[in-house]
């Protein structure tokens, strides 16, 4: 009986691991491809181990396009992502505090609008938003890529509100008795206690913005201002033959921060998705 159970257990773990390996195979294949030469990639081999382990792809890929190296592209990505993420945390925490802790006229109305924007497909407002920025002379430029993030992101507002419900209201009351204003309650009590929700927000927003393709595609036109996601696509767009090795090399590099964050903050991410839900 015990042997049978042990066998079942081993079988279970083997099956789950094998299947997990198949799931991440494309990613592993890309990483190994970044060390293979083009002819080896194009032959479509299953092998994850390169015949000759070469780092030349990283050298050629890093050179980028028309004199702009991937240093610039990654720097641009990091800039846009950092500013947008900072804006999201700041604005979403402010807005969620007002919705969950303060009774004011119009709260229900704005809250309903917020839920509505969560369901609103981005494509409906994409074109007029572009036209507005265009008229304001902000296209091409970074402003359209970061400005909306300073106005609160519905998904994160909702998530922070749920988290705030777990912060006891007695703390607010106590602070109020001690002479703290609503502004003080936000900055001295709610914000410090909100830390786990903020970490989750930073991670998820970082991922979304780092991967974002459509925004930079619409709003950036000079190669020097491109983000990494746009630049990687350029490998496939070039008129001559696609340099798959270099493309995979830069793709791998672009995923390094994603994996690092996942490795260190896995717990926050899983909890964040589990409690509030996450699209994608």
């Amino acid at each position, binding site marked *: 009986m015990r042997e049978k159970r042990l066998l079942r257990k081993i079988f*279970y773990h083997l099956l*789950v691991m094998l299947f*997990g390996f198949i*799931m*991440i195979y*494309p*990613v592993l294949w*890309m990483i190994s*491809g970044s060390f293979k030469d083009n002819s080896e*990639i194009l*032959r479509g081999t*299953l092998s994850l181990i390169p015949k000759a382990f070469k780092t030349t792809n990283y050298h050629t890929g890093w050179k980028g396009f028309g004199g702009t190296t991937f240093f610039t592209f990654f720097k641009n990505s990091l800039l846009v992502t950092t500013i947008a993420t900072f804006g999201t945390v700041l*604005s979403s925490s402010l*807005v969620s505090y*007002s919705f969950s802790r*303060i009774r*004011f*006229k*119009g*709260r229900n109305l*704005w809250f309903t609008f*917020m839920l509505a*924007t969560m369901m*609103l*497909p*981005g*494509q*409906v*407002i*994409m*074109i*007029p938003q*572009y036209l507005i920025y*265009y008229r304001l002379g902000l296209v091409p430029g970074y402003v359209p890529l970061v400005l*909306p993030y300073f*106005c*609160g992101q519905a998904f994160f507002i909702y998530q922070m509100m749920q988290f705030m419900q777990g912060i006891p209201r007695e703390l607010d009351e106590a602070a109020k008795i001690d002479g703290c204003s609503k*502004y003080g309650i936000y900055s001295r009590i709610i914000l410090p206690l909100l830390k786990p929700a903020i970490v989750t927000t930073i991670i998820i927003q970082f991922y*979304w913005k780092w*991967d974002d*393709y*459509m925004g930079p595609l619409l709003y950036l036109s000079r190669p020097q201002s491109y983000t990494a*996601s746009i630049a*990687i*696509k350029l490998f496939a767009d070039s008129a001559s033959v696609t340099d*798959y090795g270099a493309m*995979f090399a830069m*793709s791998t590099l*672009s*995923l390094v921060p*994603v994996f690092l964050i*996942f490795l260190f903050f*896995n717990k926050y991410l*899983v909890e964040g*998705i*589990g*409690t509030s*839900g996450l*699209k*994608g």
Partner: protein
Amino acid sequence: MVDTKRTASTRLSMFFNNDNVVGHVFAAPFIFGFICFSFIPICMSLYYAFTDYSLGSKVAVFVGAKNFLMLFEDEVFIKSIKKTLQYVFFAVPLKLSFALLVAFVLTRKSRMVTFYRSLYYVPSLVGGSVAVALVWKQLFARKGLFNSVLMNMGFEKINWFGSEALAIYPLILMAVWQFGSSMIIFAAGLKEIPSTYYEAAQIDGANGFQSFFRITLPCLSPIILYNLVMQTISSFMTFTQAFVITAGGPNNATMLYALNVYNQAFKYNRMGYACAMSWVMLVVMSLITLVIFRTSKFWVFSESES
């Protein structure tokens, strides 16, 4: 003099500490953003949908319902609707069933489970990126990895992106592959189901399948509804994958709706027409979401009712 100054400042501080004011101060970013980046654009979009407008033209010429009437004669539009519906109807149920299955398998109490969940989450982690879309394109290329596997197994190789009937399937498969987020949400829901339910069922002689269909599924139904709605919406908006992997081809067989809207607006500079298209999309999506919610009372089980 000093007195009036003090009253002025106390009045000011009283004003700023009034709940109505505090609320609006904190909600100001959202209110500003909602008006500027959602409300005004929606109104503009509705207006432009009835005009002939392109970037650079001075005035938007009002043309009535012409854009909408043109849509129904536009072959690419009709094809893109069909293909998008095909994409959503295949990708969403497959993704959710897969997510539920994996979440269910990974409910065992074992130290490895956390590791496994992370492993299965990796595709979702990287799947939205251009990098992985480009890899996918190469995987399904004529001499790609997928065909090598097929040939090793003794099948003919398939020209995935050359065939109108088949080109959509690599995209669907890619969507299903990214089941991680739904899986984690399901896993969180599974943890909430009291183990006493299962114990009671076991005493009554229920087998594994019965307790899955009689306990797990009903208890999870609110979460299934949530995932269904969210995944349907995001599937309708799929853009990057179609843009990067197939660019809509061959012969518009993978012209997903969002890609079509993008092309009309920014490739052909037909802003008015594209706005009309995005409004049709909004209406179709709202209808489908509404249908899901309406039918949900027949299959979503809520604790309060029984």
